[in-house]
């Protein structure tokens, strides 16, 4: 027990050390807790109200699907194997600490750290039980059930990670994939109501848990079969954990660089970026840099696009817009307003791309700065690559939505192009400004926020044109005229900022 406590304390100090390292990290936690707490109140009250008119069958189906999804995610995460932070390997694995004590301490510290993120969730539960006026015993039973469920999912994840590391047979992975498929298969009934499989009649742990939760909410005693099924699952996950944690797993551990969940520093971002490159580079290997004759600017644009593909930037931007497109198509009310909102928020793309460029390139800038290449050529190529991505994805989305909903998309298209040009150049300008030696320590979050602010201010005339167009319901040709003016203004800003970027880049010190 003493060993567990010692390891636990070291691990907690390592994680919280990042908070002490920077006030920005602390500020981010407060911001998260503040924002999420406000959301939790709304969510708790909304859930409480909706459960007054509950349909027991759909409740079990939906809750079971949610728990199954969590379980499937936990199993998927276990495919990475048993990973430890690099400092843990050198500190604990060479000591007398047993694998079981280490794993127990790891789980405890993970739950402690996780519980900070879960504060809003507990708040939701409190508001929810208050809204339903549940007795204290029922509320506590609900809390205990949810906690046991979380712990058992953590047991499953940890045990399978150990098993995956020790047993390399493909059969084990195949079985786990099969289990994930089985867990998620009944969810097909949400898309197609005729699908024959549903969660409710299946003897899934998630279904047992959902039934227990439903009866607790209805202030009834849960059926014996559900309780038995739920506790059998808990017993199974605990036994599996006890057996797996008893193995000599230190020999199979895969060390990974340490970073804290609370750390927003450049170092932590770089580690995350490396993981992202590992995951996404495979799909980007068909798109390569080669020696085919091309102007240097084309070559550099290609290089930047390759970076966006291989570090996952392009994937996440596309994913965001696919989700937006689906929501836009599903929302029957005012598609035109949705398209306009979409165009306004396209300003996010240059910010995302610039943040990732900064993380991936800041340490490699020496290759560029010690070369005779004119920096203006490099930065204009970089901006064209940003503009290509941040214009094309919103444009395609707006076009699809516009065609399918027969909405007027002239002004949103101009706004998206303008946001792309101004957003890209403003973001890069602020990023380069903060690469100067005295400002280098500024947090990436502050840099991104200032970039976003500057982009928004510079886009004000474009927003004004859109506003005039909406208020006076201008004709198609007037919209075209406004659009041309917006593009001209954006181009002037782009050229001006490009000049400033080159000038500032000459004073970058590495």
């Amino acid at each position, binding site marked *: 027990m003493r060993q567990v406590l010692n390891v636990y304390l070291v691990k907690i100090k390592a994680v919280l050390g990042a908070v002490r390292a920077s006030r920005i990290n602390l500020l981010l936690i407060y911001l998260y807790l503040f924002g999420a707490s406000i959301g939790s109140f709304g969510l708790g009250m909304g859930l409480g109200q909706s459960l007054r008119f509950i349909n027991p069958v759909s409740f079990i189906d939906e809750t079971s699907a949610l728990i199954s999804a969590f379980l499937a995610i936990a199993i998927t995460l276990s495919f990475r194997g048993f990973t430890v932070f690099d400092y843990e390997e050198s500190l604990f694995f060479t000591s007398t600490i047993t694998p079981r004590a280490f794993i127990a301490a790891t789980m405890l510290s993970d739950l402690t750290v996780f519980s900070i993120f879960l504060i809003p969730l507990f708040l939701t539960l409190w508001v929810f039980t208050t809204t339903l006026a549940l007795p204290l015993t029922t509320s506590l039973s609900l809390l205990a059930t949810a906690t046991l469920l979380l712990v058992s999912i953590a047991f499953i994840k940890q045990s399978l990670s150990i098993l995956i590391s020790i047993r390399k047979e493909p059969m084990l992975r195949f079985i786990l994939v099969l289990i994930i498929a089985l867990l998620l298969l009944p969810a097909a009934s949400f898309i197609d109501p005729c699908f024959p499989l549903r969660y409710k009649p299946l003897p899934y742990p998630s279904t047992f848990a959902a039934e227990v939760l439903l009866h607790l909410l209805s202030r009834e005693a849960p059926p014996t079969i559900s309780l038995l099924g739920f506790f059998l699952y808990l017993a199974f996950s605990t036994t599996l954990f006890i057996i797996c944690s008893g193995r000599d797993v230190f020999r199979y551990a895969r060390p990974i660089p340490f970073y804290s969940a609370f750390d927003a520093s450049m170092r932590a971002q770089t580690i995350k970026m*490396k993981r992202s*490159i*590992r995951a996404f*580079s495979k799909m*980007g290997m068909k798109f*390569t*840099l*080669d*020696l085919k*004759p091309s102007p*240097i600017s084309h*070559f*550099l644009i290609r*290089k930047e696009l*390759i*970076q966006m593909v*291989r*570090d996952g930037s392009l994937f996440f931007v596309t994913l965001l817009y696919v989700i937006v497109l689906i929501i836009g198509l599903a929302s029957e009310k005012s598609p035109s307003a949705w398209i306009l909102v979409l165009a306004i928020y396209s300003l996010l793309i240059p910010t995302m791309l610039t943040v990732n460029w900064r993380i*991936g*390139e800041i*340490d*490699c800038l*020496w*290759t*560029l*700065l*010690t*070369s*005779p*290449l*004119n920096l203006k050529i*490099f930065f204009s190529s970089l901006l064209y690559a940003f503009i290509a991505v941040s214009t094309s994805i919103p444009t395609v989305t707006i076009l699809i939505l516009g065609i399918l909903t027969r909405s007027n998309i002239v002004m949103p298209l101009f706004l998206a192009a303008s946001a792309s040009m101004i957003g890209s150049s403003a973001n890069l300008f602020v990023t380069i400004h903060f690469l100067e030696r005295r400002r280098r320590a500024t947090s990436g979050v502050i840099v991104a926020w200032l970039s976003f602010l500057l982009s928004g201010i510079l886009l004000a005339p474009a927003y004004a044109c859109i506003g005039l167009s909406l208020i006076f319901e201008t004709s198609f040709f007037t919209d075209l005229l406004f659009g041309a003016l917006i593009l001209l203004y954006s181009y002037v800003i782009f050229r001006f900022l490009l000049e400033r970027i080159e000038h500032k880049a*000459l*004073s970058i*010190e*590495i």
Partner: protein
Amino acid sequence: MTPILEVYDLWKSYGEIQALRGLTLRVERGEIFGLIGPNGAGKTTTLKIIVGLLSMDRGKIIVDGVDITKQPYEYKRLIGYVPESISLPEYLTLEEFLIYSGRIRNVPNELIRERMNYYLKVFELENKRRSLILSLSRGMRQKAAIAAALIHDPELLILDEPLVGIDPVGQHRIKEIFSERVKEGKTVFISTHMLDTAERMCSRVAVIHWGRIVASGDLSTLRGIAREGANATLEEVFLKLTEESEEFNPWKADNEAGS
């Protein structure tokens, strides 16, 4: 013939810390020149100012007759640089990185291909050419950075601790490359802690301490300055020179003034 590199009265400070205090040195063509000094002496700062990664507070640097502050891009055609701590674009493959390094230095495609194949073979990295830099070991990355610095066949190759982290075979190959370059009339300027390597490789060395050059020349000249015998090694000479130059230690002066 004009020297390939001339540095005059170079000053640089980081806030209150004075890193360089009137550093002056001269590197001739066709030599391997070593800059040696203790930790914090100002070696890396000097190199970074020369290659354009840091600005100087005061002073003048001339590369092949070109004042680097007046033509900040042009002189970089003449130099190749390998930093001490190497960060490379990890999302590129080794081959792509070398192509990129060649293209931004305006090297014709045919020459890039030829030199890339040559250095990948020399450094035994041929089987890694299509591997992401992310997957390369530290030594492999070091070799990749040296290959990139050589891809445009620079007149002046500047390297900060070039042999650290490289296996013995790799070190041998790098030393051979340096010797070949010197035979071709090119210059190699290295900063190092490895005094035995510097003694064997460099035709001349400069000893830097507390931000200024305390002695410069070939080993026999340094022995004379340090008043050491004819059999004294570079290490013995270095220790004597750095001990004598403690008078330049600004912290020591502060402490004495304080007491």
